């Protein structure tokens, strides 16, 4: 595919991606912070639904022979150290790399600073990559997927795992209905937490 057609396709897919991210509200900083403080579970619902749908779709593509997998290599130290730093950054940014752009599109001003910091972070890594490679970015198990570990054909394991996620999501929805978690201004901001005085307990219980 030529670069031009790849760019046009990327733009079209990105518009859909951004539109759905905005409708899902997962780009809202209060949704992300609420999730990481274990107060609002909207982000987990969207994320796991995306994984479940992906499992079904990719399982079908593999089963029909239309496509193979494109997994990333497992490099334990890099996955753990990088993941921890990424998570800390997500909490401070109130965004992930992709939703930073959705925040900019929706109009949040601070997202431009997240974007600038992100570009500098990616550039800093690029300059340090040759130094980091021998310490952090080598070894590991290669492009290992769970179907290979367990010896189960990918589509079956993918469909089974998707079914497990869907069961979990049904339980999650019963525990925390999504309409409440979207919040009054659709930004995922819930009423302020009650001070944990004993007198406040009945009021908090009746509201939830």
């Amino acid at each position, binding site marked *: 595919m030529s670069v031009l057609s790849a760019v046009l396709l990327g733009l079209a897919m990105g518009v859909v991606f951004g539109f759905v991210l905005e409708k899902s509200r997962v780009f809202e900083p209060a949704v992300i912070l609420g999730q990481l403080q274990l107060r609002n579970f909207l982000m987990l619902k969207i994320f796991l639904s995306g994984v479940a749908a992906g499992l079904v*779709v990719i399982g079908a593509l593999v089963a029909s022979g239309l496509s193979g997998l494109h997994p*990333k290599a497992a490099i334990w130290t890099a996955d*753990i150290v990088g993941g921890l730093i990424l998570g800390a950054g997500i909490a*401070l940014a109130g965004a992930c*790399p992709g939703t930073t752009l959705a925040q900019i*599109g929706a109009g949040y001003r601070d997202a431009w*600073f997240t*974007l600038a910091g*992100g570009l500098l972070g990616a550039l800093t890594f690029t300059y340090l990559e040759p130094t980091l490679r021998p310490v952090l970015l080598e070894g590991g198990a290669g492009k290992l997927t769970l179907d290979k570990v367990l010896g189960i054909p990918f589509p079956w394991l993918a469909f089974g795992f998707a079914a497990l996620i869907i069961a979990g999501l049904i339980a999650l929805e019963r525990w925390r209905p999504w309409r409440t978690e979207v919040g009054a201004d659709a930004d995922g901001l819930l009423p302020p937490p009650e001070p944990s005085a004993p007198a406040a307990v009945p009021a908090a219980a009746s509201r939830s």
Partner: protein
Amino acid sequence: MPALTDRAWSPYFAGALLGLLQIPAFLLIGTALGASSSFVTVSATLASLVDPAIQQIDYAAKHLSGAKNWWQVALVVGIALGAFLSATLSGTRRRGIAPVWARALGTKSPATRFALAFLGGFLMLAGARIADGCTSGHGLSGMAQLAVGSFVAIAATFAGGIAMAHLLRRV
């Protein structure tokens, strides 16, 4: 029925649509959805204007050209356009700084928020590039391919995120 003018869609419906985007990614581009490597493509391209030597770094060279790299840059630009379109249609365009930050940081100072956003963005992309993926590449795509390294990376991401979020004030 979800309408284009709705303020919010069901997270299950919206999440499923995100998963369906894997179809054109796999079939037409031959890759899975991702977002963070586009930050390398853009920043290394900008840096090459003042420091052409960056092209001697293999990692930069791998990200500077090719259809897949610029597809992902277009994808994240499209995300901004799509979010703008959706927010405009539903009347949820945002201005300034989200109200959650006054609660989380205990101050309404824009300078504090801008500094933390910059730091957050820096850590986010440094971490994503060390781990070779973010919530899209390792999360949506890696877990949907049952990639063992992606499960580890996402567990670490949530651990780091939960720890840092608890250092802020409770929202």
